[in-house]
């Protein structure tokens, strides 16, 4: 029974099915399946998709679709982990968003999906995110990494503002900060005191791993 539930949970993720992923996650909880085990199965499923994308066999809608299914199931399992007082292993928690004034979503969503697929716990704050919301998100989710996107030269300076806000709150040193987006360059990232920049989404995953001190998964 439990094997069947876990298999269905996995299939829901590799089948890009949000509703079924949430349903099977709830069933897993109801049946008293070890939530850590459930999360492991989900991680295997999402990594399978991530690998397929990396190999060029799967495409962006597959990756984002699977990440969305994963995101639908994760809170249900996480709540159970909390309830039973178990400890989950994740590569780290990433709070991600596109900065205030900027409404470009695709690049940020792609990075969030790939980070999810790699085993990070990702909290996507969305687009047009104010400095205050980033601060709140970092505190609420106890983020290891803050990832910010800006696509326009006019919104790039907002990344500086967020970093300033973090300093003001005294939490700058609690997170690693990575920046990206069409308007960002390495020079800009250095000038605002970010910890890392990469021009591509797969590169952003490598960067996130470096920032949390984990080697790339083979």
């Amino acid at each position: 029974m439990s094997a069947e539930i876990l298999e269905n949970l996995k299939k829901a993720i590799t089948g890009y099915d949000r509703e079924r992923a949430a349903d099977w996650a709830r069933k897993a909880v109801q049946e008293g399946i070890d939530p850590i085990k459930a999360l492991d199965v989900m991680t295997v499923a999402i990594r399978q998709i991530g690998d397929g994308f990396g190999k060029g066999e799967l495409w962006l809608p597959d990756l984002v679709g699977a990440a969305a299914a994963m995101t639908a199931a994760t809170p249900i399992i996480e709540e159970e982990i909390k309830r039973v007082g178990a400890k989950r292993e994740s590569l780290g928690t990433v709070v991600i968003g596109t900065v205030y004034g900027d409404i470009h979503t695709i690049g940020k969503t792609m990075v969030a999906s790939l980070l999810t697929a790699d085993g990070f716990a990702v909290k996507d704050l969305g687009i047009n995110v104010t400095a205050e919301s980033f601060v709140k998100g970092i505190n609420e989710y106890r983020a290891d990494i803050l990832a910010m996107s800006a696509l326009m030269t006019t919104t790039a300076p907002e990344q500086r503002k967020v970093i300033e806000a973090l300093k003001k709150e005294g939490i700058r040193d609690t997170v690693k900060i990575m920046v990206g987006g069409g308007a960002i360059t390495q020079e800009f990232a250095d000038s605002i005191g970010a910890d890392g920049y990469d021009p591509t989404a797969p590169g952003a995953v490598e960067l996130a791993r470096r920032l949390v001190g984990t080697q790339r998964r083979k």
Partner: protein
Amino acid sequence: MAGKGFTRNFRPLEILTEEEVEAIHRGMLEVLWVTGVRMEHERALKLLERNGCKVDHDEMRVRIPSAVVEECLRKTPSSFHAPARDSKNSLMVGGNTLCLAVAPGNHTVDLDTWEPRPATRKENYEGVTILDALPTVHFFSPYTPYFGFKDVPPCMAMLESLAARIRNSTKFQCVGFSNDSEVFAIKMAQAVGIEILGTCAFAPPLTVYRDAVESAFRFAEAGLPLRIISGQVMGGTAPATIAGGIVTNNAEVIAGLVLAQLINSGTRILVKDFSASVNMRSGAPAFGGIEICLHNAASNQIFQKYGVPIDDTTAYPNSKMPDYQSSYEKAFRILTAGLSGANTLLFHGSVHGELTHHPIQAILDDDSAGMVGRFMEGFAVNDETLAVDLIEKVGPIPGHFLDKAHTRKWWKSEQFLPKVADRLTYPEWMNKGKKVCLDYARERMEDILTTHKPTPLTPGQEGDVERILEEARKFYKDRGLITGEEMATYRKSMKSPHYPYE
């Protein structure tokens, strides 16, 4: 009459059946009424509400009934006058004409490595000079040639760009909006005594932010023409299907059109169908795709039916340098625009997407634009051109046509002569260093920079432009959008003895 745009002397291509046009129209009407549009601007929402639209103020959502949509479409002029600084460059936008404009790029490219880098002030001004000289550039689009240039803070990019274009070109100008830049742009235009085309840009799907609506108010209230654009990527910010993409795009730009007509009835409007698909590998817009041509051919047909001037998707190639790929990607774009009912197309100079632009590319594009313009003209069919009498006179071999007055009279108007294409024979080509079009384009660029002297502003106009720029600099400094460090670099760059040109 390249300066006035190209006239399409044939019925535009119609790729949709009447039923399909009607189905897309009804889809757009349904979306505008059932789903509506999120418009983050209270004054606009109140105006729409007073005119029969249903408004949810908490959600900032407006639902527009069909009757209002169709009435506003009727109010929109089918063609409009776009006056330039020099009246010989003024345009009538709409009907069966195609006017071409500059396609912007964020940066320039290095001609040896083809890598992107920021343009300098001098390169920006020289870029404008070259575009001013190219006969197939009929007008300038916002922040062209470059989004900005070295030492200029981002918030001043739009205005510095407009100032450069007003100074170094007498062609018609279009501007964008960013942090209220349009207030100063309108002031600058009024001071110089010209009209400019403004922009209101939606954020797909079905959203328009405050800045864009504010820009619509400012241009429509000033009695200036307005370009309404969206900018969807199919599969990302619009359905992956072309038909669905057209429905959402049209719902967006027509919501903007309705707003503009309610602000000021009869406002001159240019709607834009700016579409691409998502590159499902990188997430970036897949510019250069042939599906964009299908999308635009259909949109052009629909807006021709509405009698509303339409701006085609900008001809952005995906290649990184002028090469085989870049040529076919740009050629498909402009040929589709030419064949179907597009009224304007941003074409010249884009190298890779909207990221880079170079005058060399614009010079190459001047030739392909000329070719499409020539195609659109078509050819005359009458007794003289049929030449039956002449054919009888020449007869079979050894007769020929090369020495005939008829040939001397007609060949130059029948043939299009590209300026930088390689048309040499093999021996000539080998003897002359195996030059390709890119080499000729570079020579033409040098030639233009030596010989073309843009008509300068009068000292009074020049003073006004600089005064308004200075006003804007202070405004943005006070607003905290220019840091002390940025201002110091900016001021230092202005101390050049050749300011503002280098």
